[in-house]
């Protein structure tokens, strides 16, 4: 290919392969192994250079970016938390004024929920699910790339506006009328509503891709009843995203309309109602916390199984309890609204539903204890974090039962008791498992082991710091300290417990810093990990660390629920996928029998272009409603560019219908029904 032609392909990755070879199909087994690996890498890998990086549609590249970006947002959210703790350490502290404090607590919640917790869980799924189900890339890779860019753009936008003193300042729950046009003039709330749109579009796109990957791209033999608990967790999470996130998107649309074009959804003077916001928001907001928790249960399942050296006890019970948590979580949003004057019977119903969640959660805990009981636990840092998860999560679960009681909640609601409760559930239930997952999969991501000593130090610092920070908050809440106050009077007597909490925050911060030091130094100098350093059972450990761009030289055939533990010496493999095309095997939804093949799209800059178009539109909407119709045009152009056929992709496609004889056509059509 001539150089000028190459530069002409501004958007599309040009095919640099030797053109004539494209005529011949190259299939697995046609070439010697090293040549085949090279060809596969050329087919599946990112193209070189910065442009190749931008255009990547490889699930591991995107997943890694997603994880790192989410982790950076976690650090930013953490810094905000430390600032809040400094402010609250003493009564009538003047470190932060009310304006800045309100922005900071809003930014902290918004960052942790929308920019850290959900994205990082989905990021792990993007990286690990295709490996665990034994395929070469995630379904709809361009949409996943788009989801990453839009997420990044949303997060950057939020922090830029925050630095410009236009950060949202009425809480991550953004209650109207406080967030409405009358009581929050200016652009701060518009920034919040647009951030929600950014992150929801991103989360929804990824969720659809994960569901499709899990249902259609599993390796032969990986029938649903053999699916690792981790993958089940990601499946349940994705379904929950699909049904919960539209509610918050819709509510942010309603609020945007109220603020921009004068609709009256939440205006009681014109027939609207502020409580409508709370219903819509919590219909999303409660499943949201389980969207964060359920993937964490998946990590725990993987880690417990690996480190107790036996298959997890009660596979069916674990899967069913995750499914039921998913279902029940949609029926208890009203427990955020017990103080809004509901009829008692309604409250009792939602109390019962909320407490009911404790049954599947308890079942999970009991199954894991049984697994550890009958196994031979190995104390490596991932297991340590998992055990830390048990203690904190049980604690958070029990305080959750307390706040689920409608009567007790009248006292506990909106106090520091609730702050303590949900940090026990979210840090205990999601961040500890996440750090367990970091320590567990770090060797897979990088090919190097984390330092075990530093890993244990990280755990003890985080665990001690966490409990010192949040345990006293239970008592603060019972002693009457409301949430979201930027200061308190000295005579309230809350000073010492708050100081203790702040001290704990420092220790917790040290723990996170230890982890960063560990990760940065081990990335280059850690011991080589090998394929499967923990002797784990899932397919992700059945390839090199880090995995090659094509994941597997040959797709594995799964012989049992613990795929690698059940693998026999003469285990069969899949053969016959093309090595020169991004061809993946599509299997049947239930029993994963090979069904057909499909060529996944190639790397492309169009997702990035699309993300830029959507970003410009959404940011424009902060200022004027006209940005929406104006933004449709570039977005439509990007969408057409994205979907328009590219000649180099057609090389891998079945021949064109026009060239078939009618007999051939009939035969092809019959096979495809």
């Amino acid at each position, binding site marked *: 290919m001539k150089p000028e032609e190459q530069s002409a392909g501004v958007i599309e990755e040009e095919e640099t392969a030797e053109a004539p070879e494209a005529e011949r199909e190259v299939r697995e087994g046609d070439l010697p192994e090293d040549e085949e690996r090279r060809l596969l890498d050329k087919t599946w890998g990112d193209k070189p250079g910065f442009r190749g990086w931008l255009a990547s549609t490889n699930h591991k590249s995107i997943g890694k970016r997603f994880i790192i970006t989410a982790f950076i947002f976690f650090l930013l959210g953490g810094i905000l938390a430390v600032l809040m703790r400094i402010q609250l350490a003493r009564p009538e502290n003047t470190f932060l004024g009310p304006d800045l404090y309100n922005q900071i607590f809003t930014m902290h919640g918004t960052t942790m929920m929308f920019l850290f917790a959900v994205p990082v869980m989905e990021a792990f799924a993007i990286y690990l699910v295709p490996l665990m189900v034994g395929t070469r890339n995630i379904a709809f890779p361009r949409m996943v790339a788009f989801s990453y860019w839009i997420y990044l753009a949303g997060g950057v936008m939020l922090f830029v506006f925050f630095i410009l003193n236009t950060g949202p300042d009425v809480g991550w729950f953004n209650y109207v009328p406080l967030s409405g046009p009358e009581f929050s003039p200016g652009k701060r709330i518009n920034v919040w509503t647009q951030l929600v749109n950014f992150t929801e579009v991103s989360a929804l796109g990824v969720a659809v891709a994960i569901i499709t990957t899990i249902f259609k791209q599993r390796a032969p033999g990986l029938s649903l009843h053999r699916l690792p608990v981790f993958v089940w967790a990601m499946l349940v999470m994705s379904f929950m995203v699909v049904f919960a996130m539209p509610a918050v998107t819709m509510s942010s649309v309603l609020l945007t309309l109220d603020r921009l074009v004068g609709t009256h959804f939440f205006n009681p003077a014109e027939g609207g109602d502020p409580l409508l916001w709370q219903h819509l928001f919590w219909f999303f907001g409660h499943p949201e916390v389980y969207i964060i928790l359920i993937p964490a249960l998946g990590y725990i399942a993987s880690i417990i199984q690996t480190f107790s050296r036996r298959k997890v006890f009660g596979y069916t019970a674990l899967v069913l309890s995750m499914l039921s948590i998913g279902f029940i979580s949609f029926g208890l949003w009203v427990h955020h609204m017990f103080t809004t004057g509901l009829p008692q019977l309604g409250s009792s119903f939602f109390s019962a539903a909320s407490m009911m969640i404790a049954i599947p959660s308890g079942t999970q805990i009991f199954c894991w204890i049984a697994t550890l009981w009958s196994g031979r636990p190995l104390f490596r840092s991932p297991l340590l974090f998992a055990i830390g998860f048990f203690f904190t999560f049980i604690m958070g679960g029990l305080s959750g039962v307390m706040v689920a009681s409608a009567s007790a909640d009248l006292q506990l609601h909106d106090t520091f008791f609730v702050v303590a409760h949900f940090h026990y559930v979210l840090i205990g239930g999601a961040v500890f498992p996440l750090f367990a997952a970091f320590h567990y999969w770090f060797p897979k991501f990088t090919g190097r082991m984390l330092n075990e000593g530093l890993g244990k130090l990280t755990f003890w610092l985080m665990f001690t710091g966490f409990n010192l920070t949040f345990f006293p908050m239970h008592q603060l809440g019972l002693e009457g300290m409301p949430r979201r106050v930027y200061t308190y009077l000295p005579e309230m007597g809350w000073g010492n417990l708050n100081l203790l909490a702040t001290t704990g925050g420092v220790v917790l911060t040290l723990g996170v810093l230890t982890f960063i030091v560990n990760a940065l130094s081990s990335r280059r100098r850690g011991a080589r990990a090998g394929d499967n350093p923990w002797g784990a059972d899932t397919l992700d450990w059945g390839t090199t660390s880090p995995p090659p761009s094509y994941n597997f030289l040959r797709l594995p055939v799964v012989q049992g629920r613990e795929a690698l533990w059940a693998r026999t010496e003469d285990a069969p493999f899949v053969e016959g996928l093309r090595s020169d095309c991004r061809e993946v095997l599509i299997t049947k939804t239930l029993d994963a029998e090979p069904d057909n093949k499909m060529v996944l799209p190639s790397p492309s800059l169009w997702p990035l272009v699309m993300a830029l178009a959507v970003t410009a539109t959404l940011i424009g909407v902060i200022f004027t409603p006209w940005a929406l119709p104006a933004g449709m045009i570039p977005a439509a152009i990007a969408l057409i560019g994205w979907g328009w056929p590219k000649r180099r992709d057609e090389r891998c*496609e079945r021949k064109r219908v026009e060239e078939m004889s009618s007999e051939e056509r009939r035969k092809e059509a019959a096979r495809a029904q």
Partner: protein
Amino acid sequence: MKKGSATIDVTGLPEFAFGNRGLMWWGVVGFLAIETTMLVTCFASYFYLRDRATDWPPPPTLLPDLLIPTVNLGLLLLSVVPIHLVSRAARRLDKRRALIWMTVGITMGIAFVAIRALEFRALNVSWDTNAYGSIVWLIIGVHTFHLASEVVETIVITLILAKGHTEPKYFVDLTDNALYWYFIVAIWIPCYVIVFLAPRFL
């Protein structure tokens, strides 16, 4: 890597498949689920606001007109026929028939969008008059947004096909696109009932 004793050879498997055997179908269904949830959220908001009000529509707002919306509903329901024929032709890899019925479907879609502009006027209320006006505008607005993007999408696929890109996967896209069209039509029925009929008996 040593070759396993028994390999599963997938060379001969079909390279495209219709319906839920293909990936695209799952993507489309995923987005249908998302969009249904969005519209159901709108419906729930409608009934919630209805419940808060004493009179519906709140006076002095008039009831919406019925003539144009009903005509348009009929037109939209009718458009299922050509789209179904497109889907059938696509499943037989019949480019010519698919294109013909596609054109008919698109024409009906464009006509529908055009009449939609009149439908907003038939509401007899503005979005900023009261919460009732806001919610009915929202429901129709969200639906129109989906409908318009579906028509554009259909035009693009038709152009791809007409331009001579006749790989089988575009025929699969036609059937998945038809699925989306059915959804747009089906979801309009509750929208119509809620916006135009419900105020008469709620």
